[in-house]
């Protein structure tokens, strides 16, 4: 990992006094994003590199505060007309912003994502044929596991590059986790309960040749969701998946997850997260893809940019905002400064430049993302407007089944009725 040196305190201070303005042909635009202290160092380094190379535009970065309330804060600022010109948003929010006319149409100002950008990521930020944001980094779903707990149960799994699809299916996963639950003894189970995890569910649905959303509605049927809940219900009953109260404790940081708390060796995550997980646990962690569907089913993998950077549609300097956004993520000399904060760089040229600067653990994350990139099928695109509350609906439905408060049928009906009112 490389670090940027002094002058950052000054950058912070200036950032805090940000706001758009121009003087003497030089345009100043503001930018915000959210993350750890390290992310803020990266953002500032990236912006500094941009300012040095493109003197006509000055970008001032303002840290977005604590992660939990960032989305609310941005929405409120946009509503009040005080939002920065460039805004990092979650992938799930983009269509909402586009729909409300607050995401700048970058195509209109000549922004094109070149061939060195990953195809999945271009698909993701292109809505109705127009580029609406820049992808920050390529990320992929990844199953993290505790190698020590597996070894205790006498199970050794091959490296993800050597695992054949048909050897790693949801059925295999159920078999292995049930066995783990039996041999690891009391109060330790095979896996977290991912029945309420919308990413795992999406993989399951895509393996059936569908997507979670189709247009402005759901892309799957009640029987699909029912099969999914049934799968996890059986795993809980067999001791393969953790009890609902252990799972329900996992609602904030990963430190409350069954994996880190030593309750179950498998956790459904994204590729870059393992770098944050490993320091929290003594046992060596390793990685696999999410399980595959039964023989003959479609591959679900795709790369995604969990964080996107969009232009504020109400900015006074749309041209400069579009240009700054383009250069921040397309110019390797600038983009490389952001490092791997939200996954592998979206552009191949930046990635090549960055790779030699990284340590072995981080390179392993990039290798995994690259591996998934090669297996990738067509990305599902960003969720439709109104869908932001549905992952939570899925979690509630699964929790209700797990605690025995609802039958699977009622839980499925509940989710579909939530979806109907949310997607309209």
């Amino acid at each position, binding site marked *: 990992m490389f670090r940027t040196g002094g002058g950052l305190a000054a950058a912070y201070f200036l950032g805090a006094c940000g706001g758009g303005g121009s003087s003497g042909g030089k345009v100043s635009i503001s930018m915000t994003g959210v993350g750890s202290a390290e992310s803020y160092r990266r953002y500032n380094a990236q912006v500094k590199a941009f300012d040095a190379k493109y003197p006509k535009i000055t970008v001032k970065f303002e840290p977005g505060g604590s992660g*939990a309330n960032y*989305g*609310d804060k941005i*929405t*409120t600022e*946009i*509503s009040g007309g005080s939002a920065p010109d460039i805004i990092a948003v979650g992938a799930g929010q983009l269509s*909402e*912003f586009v729909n*409300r*006319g*607050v995401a700048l149409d970058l195509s209109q100002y000549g922004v094109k994502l070149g061939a060195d950008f990953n195809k999945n990521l271009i698909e993701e930020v292109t809505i109705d044929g127009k580029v609406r944001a820049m992808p920050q980094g390529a990320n992929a779903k990844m199953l993290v596991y505790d190698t020590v707990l597996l070894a205790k149960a006498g199970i050794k799994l091959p490296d993800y590059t050597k695992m054949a699809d048909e050897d790693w299916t949801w059925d295999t996963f159920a078999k292995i986790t049930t066995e783990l639950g039996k041999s690891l003894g009391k109060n330790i189970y095979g896996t977290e309960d991912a029945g309420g995890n919308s990413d795992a569910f999406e993989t399951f649905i895509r393996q059936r040749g569908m997507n979670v959303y189709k247009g402005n509605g759901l892309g799957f049927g009640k029987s699909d969701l029912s099969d999914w809940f049934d799968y996890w219900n059986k795993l809980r009953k067999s001791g393969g998946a953790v009890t*609902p*109260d*252990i*799972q*329900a*404790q996992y*609602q*904030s940081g990963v430190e*409350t997850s069954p994996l880190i*708390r030593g309750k179950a060796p498998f956790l459904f995550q994204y590729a870059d997260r393992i770098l944050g997980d490993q320091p929290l646990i003594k046992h060596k962690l390793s990685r696999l893809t999410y399980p595959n569907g039964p023989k003959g089913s479609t591959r679900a993998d795709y790369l995604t940019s969990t964080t996107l950077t969009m232009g504020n549609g109400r900015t006074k300097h749309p041209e400069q905002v579009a240009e700054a956004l383009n250069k921040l993520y397309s110019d390797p000399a600038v983009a490389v400064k952001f490092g791997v904060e939200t996954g592998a760089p979206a552009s191949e040229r930046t990635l090549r430049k960055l790779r030699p600067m990284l340590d072995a653990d981080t390179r392993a994350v990039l290798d995994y993302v690259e591996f998934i990139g090669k297996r990738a099928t067509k990305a599902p695109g960003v969720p439709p407007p109104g869908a*932001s*509350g549905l992952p*939570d609906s899925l*979690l*509630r439905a699964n*929790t*209700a089944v797990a*605690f025995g*408060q609802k039958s699977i049928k009622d839980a499925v009906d509940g989710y579909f009725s939530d979806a109907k009112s*949310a997607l309209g």
Partner: protein
Amino acid sequence: MRRPIATLTRDRARSVERTAVSRGRFRGRTLGEGTTAYLFLLPWFLGLVGLTLGPMVASLYISLTNFSLLSAPQWTGLTNYTQLFADPRYLQSLKVTFIYVFLSVPLKLALALLVAMILNTKVRGRGFYRAAFYLPSLLAGSVAIAVLWREIFSDNGLLNQVLGLFGLKNLPSWISTPHYALYTLVVLAVWEFGTPMIIFLAGLQQIPRDLYEAAAVDGAGRLHRLRNVTLPLLTPIIFFNLVMQIIGSFKTFTPAYIISGGTGGPNDSTLFYTLYLYVQGFTQFRMGYATAMAWVLMVIIAIFTAINFFGAKYWVYYEDKGS
């Protein structure tokens, strides 16, 4: 409210008199005093209109619209209000909040009174105890305590470890089981009994000693003195605490937000009214609906406060009036 405070703060009343007398010296210079006073009050008036009344009127308007924060509000009349009562999660949030208020307020007040009575006796180091018992209420609204609570009531948290010493095994994670989660939050609320306790303590110290002595001479035992002297004279304070605590409990937000990670989980078992309001407004972008919820909450609190004041006529005793 004026009367009980007047009864209880005779000393302060005297000092106010003194101040008034000493101010008399400046009586000659009254010219423009009214104007000056209003000038000094102006910032407050501006605040009242700009920061309180203005936003209230605006929120009343927003509650009658469909407003996503990102585009202009669209008038929908009473739709938000009628939708509320057909929304099962809204009804769940009402249920959770009512259970919480009805359990936590009486328990908290009872504990506060009990501790106040103990600390009103002449125990050694009572200054320390008073501070120690008051401390939780300074901390309880904080994020740190909510996090601590989550740890205490988790599956291998402090509580289960202590119970484990007594041979109790296979205990659930209290904080993440729908049947118990709300009750752990009630315990948290009761634990922060410091504020009403301090007010009770002040009230207890205002009860004239001679009344106890007279009662003792008449042969009244401890219980009799509690029932016939302490409690009647304390009713104005109990009333005050009751009103304030009910209002505060309806508005509880932080513990549920932190402990459930902002979801009101597991499975909506801690979905407090204010938390659901927040979810609707800021994560679902339904600000019109959220403000409608806020207005309904205000009406609910107003009704409870009105009932309290109405009922007070029958049980609250004011010394100066009663004699």
